[in-house]
């Protein structure tokens, strides 16, 4: 190879090999698989209806009947925790998907066009990147109002900038490569070059990073729900459960503690996975 750059696509086999040799990556993968399965099979796994109130059994501590106790409406914490996984994963996944599509498109187009346009776009993205994710999400969610759709939009916007960054850098090197020149000479339009020739060469970079940013998206979702800007009650969300638990923190510790660990484990699983994927796709750190 005469023209080796950092953007050289990693062969899938090599990536898998490096990934599978990392023990922590397996921990992350197993954890995440377990959480996804719990979310998918929630109706079969949850012992109770997550919305069913039971005034007689208010604020019950963990017991054989209610494994993780009940909340101030007598709802089963374990069942709410299981259903809450659905919201966290769904919001995180959809938000990252939107951010990935929009961000990558912005990065590729900006890098391909270059010049003043590119400088302005990057200037704006730099500010978005350094603006506190939580505050940006908070402002957007506050302006739009609390709902599932608005929550996803708010989180997606906060994650656009990193994707654009990752997509832009390889575009700038790739657009000068011979195969792009060749397809241009062949009569391909700019859109076709950008999305058929340049994009596939960086897709692995983008996908690798999305795992790390999904961790950040889920953290933002939980934080916004905790502040009260998430999916409105009575829907079970982990952040919302902690919010309710926080109100009863002096006499019912289990309300806040269990959803806290659920969030922690999910974010940790994604971080472990993302770290391992990034290390595996970056030949220098092998």
């Amino acid at each position, binding site marked *: 190879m005469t023209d080796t750059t950092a953007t050289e696509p990693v062969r899938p086999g090599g990536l898998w090999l490096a990934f599978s040799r990392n023990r922590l990556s397996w921990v992350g993968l197993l954890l995440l698989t377990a959480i996804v399965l719990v979310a998918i099979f929630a109706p079969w796994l949850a012992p109770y209806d997550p919305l069913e109130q039971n005034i007689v059994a208010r604020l019950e501590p963990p017991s054989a009947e209610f494994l993780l106790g009940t909340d101030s409406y007598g709802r089963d914490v374990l069942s709410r925790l299981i259903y809450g996984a659905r919201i966290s994963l769904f919001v995180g996944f959809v938000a990252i998907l939107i951010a990935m599509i929009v961000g990558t498109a912005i990065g590729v187009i900006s890098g391909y066009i270059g010049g003043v346009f590119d400088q302005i776009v990057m200037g704006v993205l730099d500010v978005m990147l350094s603006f506190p994710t939580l*505050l940006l999400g908070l402002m957007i969610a506050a302006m739009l109002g609390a709902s599932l759709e608005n929550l996803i939009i708010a989180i997606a916007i906060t994650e656009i900038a990193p994707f654009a960054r990752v997509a832009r850098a390889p575009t700038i090197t790739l657009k000068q490569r011979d195969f792009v020149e060749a397809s241009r000479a062949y009569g391909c339009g700019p859109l076709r070059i950008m999305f058929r020739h340049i994009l596939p060469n960086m897709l692995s970079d983008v996908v690798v990073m999305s795992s790390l940013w999904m961790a950040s998206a889920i953290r933002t979702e939980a934080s916004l729900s905790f502040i009260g800007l998430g999916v409105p009650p009575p829907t079970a969300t982990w952040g919302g459960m902690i919010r309710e638990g*926080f109100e009863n923190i002096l006499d019912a510790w289990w309300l806040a503690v269990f959803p806290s660990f659920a969030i922690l484990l999910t974010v940790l699983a994604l971080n472990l996975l993302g770290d391992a994927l990034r290390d595996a796709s970056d030949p220098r750190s092998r």
Partner: protein
Amino acid sequence: MIIYTLRRLLLALPTLLVMLTAIFVLVRLVPGDAASVILGDQASTEALAALREKLGLNKPLYVQYLAFLGDVFSGNLGTAMSTGRSVIHEVLTVLPSTIELTLAAIVIGLIFGLPLGVAAALTRNGWLDYVSRIVSLVGLSFPAFVSGILMLIVFAIQLGWFPVLGGAASGTDFSDRMRQLALPALNLGIIMMAYVMRVTRAAMLGVLTEDYIRTGRAKGLGPRQLVVTHALRNSLIPIITVVGLYFGTLIGNSVLTEIIFNRPGLGKLIVGALNARDYTLLQGLMIIFAFCVIVVNTLTDLAYGLVDPRVKYE
């Protein structure tokens, strides 16, 4: 150096302008308009029209935009609707406790994060490296309010070592103040430490393989001199970048921490503004945050020049 500084300061201006425009647009995205939000659903059409007139919402958009910019650049961020005091006044009242909290967190993060990161890099793949990597990954995975709640439950409620309800406003003596600051600052500091440690480790690992380190060793430099003056100094650029970038996260985390530990500060101010649907206060806070972030970014860039002489000549 002077030219570099001036150029960086000039670059910050367009960025600020873009941010202000974004905030202007965002506030205009509120469903309905500001007047109907302020007065609520029951407002009469006359009252709405009068308020629109007062707020200048009837004027063309570009006039509103120019008026907005004019206000911001003359330091007028408007009046908080919920309290009737100026936004600047509201912010200045609570700012000292937020600054106190974030400074304490930065100190904790750097004091523990830097040495641990260096130690992890020096013992690469040893047990210390392994443990510190896992600890830092766990630290990074904690949303600030989750770690805050867990600390509150364990140290304040179960063990009773610290007061459950914080608040620097009580005007008590120094040791009480420290006790109130301890848990929130530790909460923010530990997350920051995880971050600093990770970056320090990565940066040190990059530098330690450089030729000049080998040369230094061959010359007979002691390990301390080698690590501190040669390796660490050259690792500082990525560390400074990340710490600068982390400032935004730190502010976000301090918002959550202030809510959990019931401390006065920007965080409680934001949540209060949210609950009262006080959009002028929110807008003002956004502008102030944007301004702070841009200032910190600029300072971060300027810090490069101090650490790395090569930057000046670019």
